[in-house]
């Protein structure tokens, strides 16, 4: 599992796409944090409200574009190897659960490194570290990576998963926020499917997002066990 995770992790740093996304994430975070003090002054925010203003750029990035960027980089995390038949070398050497876990862990570590680095950038300006916010952000990208792994197992062709992935990445924040605020309608139960429902609250309900991610990974694992390579 760890060797697969290691390869996936380093492989992600090698593509131009990932370098651009890392640069965009860090630049957005840097400039948002840098000009946060100006915004705080203009908006006349209280010290309590201004406490996390420096992370606004990072949160904006992850909430709106997180799924799109995760899908752009990892839409083919599983199906590329099945399609190109390199998966045959892996399934004859280790368990399918180890492959799924390794792939997920590799992509997850990539985003963990990027988000942690971005958080460190905000600390330079805010002189304050909000572990709760970091944990919430981790729960969000955990969900996004698990969704990417699941879609990559369900969709057999990488070109098709790229298309579906981009569509899903664009729709994800719109659907997510819309569903999170649904009330008093017959379809309001949809809000429980959206990670934003749990993230907009300032308590530990965001931990439910991890449960949702685990459920998607279990589904991906069961599907992959039945998949011919």
């Amino acid at each position, binding site marked *: 599992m760890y060797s*697969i995770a290691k390869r996936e992790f380093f492989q992600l740093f090698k593509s131009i796409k990932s370098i651009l996304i890392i640069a965009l994430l860090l630049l957005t975070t840097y400039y948002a944090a840098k000009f946060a003090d100006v915004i705080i002054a203009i908006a006349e925010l209280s010290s309590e409200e201004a406490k996390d203003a420096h992370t606004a750029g990072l949160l904006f990035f992850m909430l709106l574009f997180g799924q799109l960027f995760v899908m752009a980089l990892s839409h083919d995390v599983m199906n590329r190897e099945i399609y190109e038949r390199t998966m*045959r*070398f*892996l*399934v*004859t*050497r280790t368990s399918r659960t*180890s492959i799924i876990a390794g792939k997920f862990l590799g992509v997850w570590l990539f985003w963990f490194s990027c988000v942690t680095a971005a958080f460190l950038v905000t600390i330079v300006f805010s002189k304050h570290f909000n572990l709760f916010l970091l944990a919430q952000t981790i729960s969000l990208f955990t969900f996004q990576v698990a969704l990417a792994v699941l879609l990559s197992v369900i969709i057999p062709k990488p070109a098709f998963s790229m298309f579906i992935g981009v569509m899903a990445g664009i729709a994800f924040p719109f659907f997510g926020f819309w569903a999170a605020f649904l009330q008093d309608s017959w379809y309001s139960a949809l809000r429980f499917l959206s990670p934003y429902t749990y993230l907009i609250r300032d308590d530990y309900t965001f931990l439910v997002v991890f449960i949702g991610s685990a459920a998607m990974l279990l589904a991906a694992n069961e599907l992959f066990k*039945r998949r*011919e390579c």
Partner: protein
Amino acid sequence: MNAIEVKNLRKSYGETAVIQGVDLTVKQGEILGFLGRNGAGKSAFINILTGIIRPTGGSFSILGCRGLSDQVKKRIGVMPDYSTLYSSMTALEHLQYFSEVSGKKKSTNQCLRVLALVGLDGDARKKAGKFSFGMKKKLGIAAAMIHNPELLFLDEPTSGLDAESVLHIQQLIQDLHKQGKTIFMTSHNLHEVEKLCHRIAIMKEGRIVKAGTMEQLRAHCRSTITVSLKHLPVPKMQTAMLYDWLEGFGTEVEAQETSTRVTIDAEEKIAQVIRAFNQCKVDILRVEVDEPTLEEIFLEE
């Protein structure tokens, strides 16, 4: 102990049955050649045994363990039919990665030694994307043996290789057998199978139609035997008598001044043919019995 035991193995895709109730045993330490025409089900059979696809029914055990557990996977080496590799990784990186995935990480020197065994030591740091088909095959074999497995599945290990490489890989297979490894190989090269394998199984339309040693297959196949004799000229007085007798005795006779070919229906009749020449005082210089080749046995199916 048997290295592989397969009982009533079946695989279907909808209405189409690819493997139809196959029973097969491979003893530990032997090389089994698995033959069949394209589409006979050979690759599907190997893919089931190696965990690439799931069977529809039946059971199998590998190295004494039922099914294919993770522990057994560490003890087998597989060279799939399509040697598609990671184009951005070098040959050396492939072996390091695969050995790590197998749970038996090998050092750079150990990987280089395995690459040398398949004749790729000079290309260790070249990217697999730049490899020819033959080089990819060799790297596939190296990847199958990098973790020193007890049982190797080689799907057409020499197809697409040049003559020198074929001999090199054949020698490697023999060396692996000398080290006590069990080898399950498929091939379209019948001479190669005849040369390397202790036992042969022939698959047709998802069923094993023949299995055994070359001798057993020959005995099963042999309905007629052709005896070729080189001899001194038959005295004119005896010619008619001898050839009349041979024509009555054999099913087909081709006679020339110093050579005769007689087709008979039983091995025991060879001695009687020789005796007939001796009785006519004809000195026999050479006797050849044409045994069916694997090609003939295969084509008979």
